[in-house]
């Protein structure tokens, strides 16, 4: 897994591809070109094996039995928590809450942090380019408390307007919740500036990091955010597991979200004493194997190095942007100067679902639709886009295949 330079001195991609069993398969008679990484990234063999080993060798419940398997399962589960802590440079594993994914993390914060505190007239600030999972939990919270949702506008490039953002922060703003990277456009927010502005005013901050963790190194202490949420399956891990980072002082002040086993110290009908952090927010038997798989994904990324991955993906983004630009009628949606490795586009006269079918017939997997960001689609006046999103194992050759398949679609359908 040593990073031997291939493209732009970044990664030995052809060798890394061998780590991912699924990349060897054919789809509709062609080698799979998997360009849907922003939806879910494929898993390397080390992740698959780590998950399987949990079932084959170590399966038991955690934090309970005194028997060997339970101790092993607990040790693996807590070791994964320590890996997650290190991965985002949190101060303590008490700040690493395992959840089902980014969506659950945001709902947890809305309900356990927002609901007890917010009052009618208080304000929550999000941006126009949020994923539905960073919109709807706040809308629910607004309905419950009478708080108001304020939305920072974007411009035609898909850049969140910082001046408007600052103007929206006011005496009633209680929570700022922002995507680190937009899933539909690829815009990378200058998140530190946004967080600094909120922190100066004493506003609680949450970062939706689902699209960021596979592409760049995240340091929650440098960001100085209150919450940071991400999902394992966007970063080459399994589905159904993710992390809510929460600043310890704030987590301590929050009531439990769900009640059940593991989140208690003692229960009697007279009353219950809740467990310490982070277990207070992990009611019920967790996704043990999933957490272990997340730990293996972190090991995999750290062995390659996020900076190498970033370099390679920047090369792919530049290549794809230039290559697709010569296709007649193709318009790239999302042209922020700082972008992650995805290209969202429309092709004049051809609906994204028809494009998706033509591409699939050539083994190319892309996402077509509104990308769970309907306000973004509305802003750009399109019902849907086609999105090719790249990961560490993608190649320029796959982008060439995408280009040729798009040409084919244009000649067939236009």
């Amino acid at each position, binding site marked *: 897994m040593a990073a031997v330079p291939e493209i732009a001195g970044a990664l030995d991609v052809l060798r890394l591809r061998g780590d991912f069993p699924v990349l060897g398969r054919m789809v509709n008679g062609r080698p799979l070109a998997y360009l849907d990484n922003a939806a879910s990234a494929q898993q390397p063999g080390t992740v698959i094996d780590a998950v399987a080993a949990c079932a084959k060798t170590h399966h038991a419940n955690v934090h309970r039995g005194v028997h060997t398997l339970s101790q092993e399962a607990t040790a693996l589960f807590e070791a994964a928590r320590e890996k997650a802590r290190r991965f985002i440079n949190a101060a303590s594993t008490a700040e690493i809450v395992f959840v089902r994914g980014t969506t659950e993390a945001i709902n947890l914060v809305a309900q356990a942090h927002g609901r007890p505190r917010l009052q009618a007239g208080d304000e929550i600030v999000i941006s126009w380019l949020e994923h539905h999972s960073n919109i709807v939990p706040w809308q629910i919270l607004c309905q419950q408390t009478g708080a108001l949702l304020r939305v920072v506008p974007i411009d035609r490039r898909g850049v969140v307007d910082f001046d408007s953002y600052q103007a929206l922060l006011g005496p009633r703003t209680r929570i700022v919740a922002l995507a680190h990277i937009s899933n539909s456009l690829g815009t990378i927010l200058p998140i530190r500036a946004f967080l600094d502005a909120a922190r100066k005013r004493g506003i609680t901050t949450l970062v939706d990091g689902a699209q960021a963790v596979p592409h760049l190194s995240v340091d929650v202490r440098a960001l100085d955010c209150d919450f940071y949420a991400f999902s394992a399956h966007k970063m080459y891990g399994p589905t159904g597991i993710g992390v809510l980072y929460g600043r310890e002082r704030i987590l301590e002040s929050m009531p439990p979200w769900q009640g059940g086993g593991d989140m208690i110290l003692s229960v009697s009908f007279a009353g219950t004493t809740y467990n310490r952090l982070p277990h207070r927010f992990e009611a019920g038997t967790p996704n043990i194997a999933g957490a272990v798989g997340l730990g293996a994904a972190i090991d995999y990324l750290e062995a390659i190095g996020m900076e190498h991955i970033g370099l390679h993906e920047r090369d792919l983004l530049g290549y794809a942007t230039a290559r697709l630009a010569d296709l007649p009628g193709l318009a790239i949606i999302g042209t922020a100067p700082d972008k992650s490795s995805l290209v969202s586009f429309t092709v004049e006269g051809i609906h*994204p*679902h*028809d494009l998706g079918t033509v591409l699939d017939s050539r083994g190319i997997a892309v996402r077509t639709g509104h990308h769970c960001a309907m306000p973004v689609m509305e802003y750009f006046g399109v*019902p849907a886009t086609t999105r090719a999103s790249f990961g560490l194992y993608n190649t320029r050759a796959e982008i060439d295949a995408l280009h040729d398949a798009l040409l084919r679609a244009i000649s067939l*359908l236009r």
Partner: protein
Amino acid sequence: MDLQDLYRDVIVDHNRRPRNFGKLAGASHFAEGYNPLCGDKLHLFLEIKDDIIRDIHFEGEGCAISTASASLMSEAVKGMSRAQIAGLFATVHRMLTREGAAKDQDLGKLAALAGVREFPMRVKCASLCWHTLNAALAGSAAPVSTE
């Protein structure tokens, strides 16, 4: 998986130049079809007199399959009675879902949609207009979805 079988010439033609496209002034029946995941939207206008569809128009936005299907349907059902449409609906449904072997000659130009059944994710595109037609005939106000 044969792309040419899905995007037959008739489909491509009806997508490029949809027939009976636009609003219908004086429509007696109307229904709306909407597949939110796709974003396919369809407004269907009917003029029914003496139980016969005298005229039919549609407008909206969607993929080639949904647009061509609505266009082909509009040509096929013009002049038909409700009972005839019910029979045709059943035949088209069988063709799209392979529940029975609908003979292509029974369907005329609509047979061009037979390739859709090899693409299960696209059946909902082809069937949206037909379910919307049923809703229009039934006078149902709620938008129809096939997702």
